[in-house]
């Protein structure tokens, strides 16, 4: 028997109820309906789907909740929703409409007790802490508010702390690599993976299948998140998995 497989997670940036693409928050164009795209990736063999509300302010908005509800009824792989989650009640509402996990970033930094409160009520497996990290001299610093504000916290130390508080998973984004498509930050990823005892999803920088191979092997990540390589139909999830399997990386084989 083999052990746990590595996960491939397409990320859908959602704004006003539609999936958009563009480099980070600029030049966004609508590319489709969230449930349609989520189901398409599910059929390609995606292990999970992430919805990220790029406006990061509309979590209470009925448009996003309606999109999550419609998606959950057709999606039989896990769905994580993040962006703009401010409170315990935001997390509860998002789970109720069909998210399996909710990712928190700014609110967790502002009020770390929120992590514990959610973990105790919903179980750690629902609570994903998203960490946006930017390189500094000798380390990485946590940024909040969609990457616009420095928190002056060390990313590796913060990762350890959120685990102690009850986080069940870390979604780690390298701000330096995000949108550049020249590869994940391997050093950052490995540093966090080795510091914590929960699974780590690497994000930011994916441009080729080799980048995914590298972050799952050398970077030691448990899962790789990617957006543009899937949205531009450069590769299907199945293509990525075939390459990973050829390189000896355990994946869920479904195609």
């Amino acid at each position, binding site marked *: *028997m*083999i*052990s*746990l*497989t*590595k*996960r491939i997670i397409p990320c859908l940036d959602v704004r006003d109820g539609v999936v958009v693409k563009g480099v980070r928050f600029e030049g966004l164009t609508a590319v489709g309906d969230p449930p349609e795209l989520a189901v398409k990736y*599910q059929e390609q063999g995606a*292990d999970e789907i992430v919805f990220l509300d790029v406006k990061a302010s509309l979590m209470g908005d009925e448009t996003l909740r309606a999109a999550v*509800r419609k998606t*959950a*009824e*057709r*999606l*039989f*792989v*896990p*769905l994580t929703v993040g962006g703009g989650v401010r409170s315990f009640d935001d997390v*509860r509402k998002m*789970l*109720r*409409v*069909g*998210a*399996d996990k909710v990712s928190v970033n700014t609110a967790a930094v502002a009020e770390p007790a929120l992590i514990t409160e959610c973990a*105790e*009520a*919903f*179980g*750690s*497996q*629902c609570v994903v802490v998203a960490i946006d990290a930017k390189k500094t001299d000798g380390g990485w610093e946590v940024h909040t508010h969609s990457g616009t504000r420095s928190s002056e916290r060390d990313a590796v130390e913060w990762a350890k702390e959120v685990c102690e508080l009850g986080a*069940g*998973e870390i979604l780690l984004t390298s701000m330096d690599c995000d949108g550049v498509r020249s590869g994940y930050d391997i050093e950052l990823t490995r540093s966090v993976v080795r510091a914590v*005892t*929960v*699974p780590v999803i690497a994000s930011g920088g994916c441009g080729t299948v080799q980048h995914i191979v590298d972050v799952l092997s050398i970077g030691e990540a*448990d*899962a790789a998140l990617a957006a543009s390589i899937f949205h531009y139909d450069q590769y299907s999830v199945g293509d990525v998995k075939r390459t990973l399997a050829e390189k000896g990386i355990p994946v*869920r*084989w*479904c195609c």
Partner: protein
Amino acid sequence: MKATVVDYGVGNLHSISKGLERAGARAAVSSNPYDVARAECIVFPGVGAFGAAMQVLRPAIDEIRDAITGGVPALGICLGMQVLFERSEESAGEGIGVLKGEARRLDAPRVPHMGWNEVRHNSDALFEGIEQDTQFYFANSYVCVPTEKVTLSETEYGLRFPSAVRKGRTCGVQFHPEKSSEPGLRLLSNFIRLSEGTA
């Protein structure tokens, strides 16, 4: 068959309800433990914490136990599997106790056990049409340790643990069939057939 999905007040119940409907059942959601005790078929979903789930069930725990022992089909998923046992290391207080044993904290380098992992089964009717070593989706920090012979399948993560159990029409799975794509939907359909006595 009408399957009653227990609502502990937290978590996503859409996928399990839709999964049961695809399996040919009608799904209803209830947070009333007395409704659960009177159900034709009970599904204990897999979200939340042990103590919080038992708090919802406790007012009618004797009635629910009697119903399941009396042959009402039940499926416990992840946490829902754990509440079928006598107790859990996660929270104080008793479980339903229709299965003998307890849930223990998973002893592995990385917890929760999160993602797709292989299930090696004994070809029980619950796994009909599902290939050996098929991967299912897990998201658990606890595993069940039965003290009676109920294990149908095992999965390896740090240690080997029972990923599915069955005693008569009482079934428990540590993975999430409603999140495990086609094989998961097949398992739900097998459960409904078992419950209807047509398997």
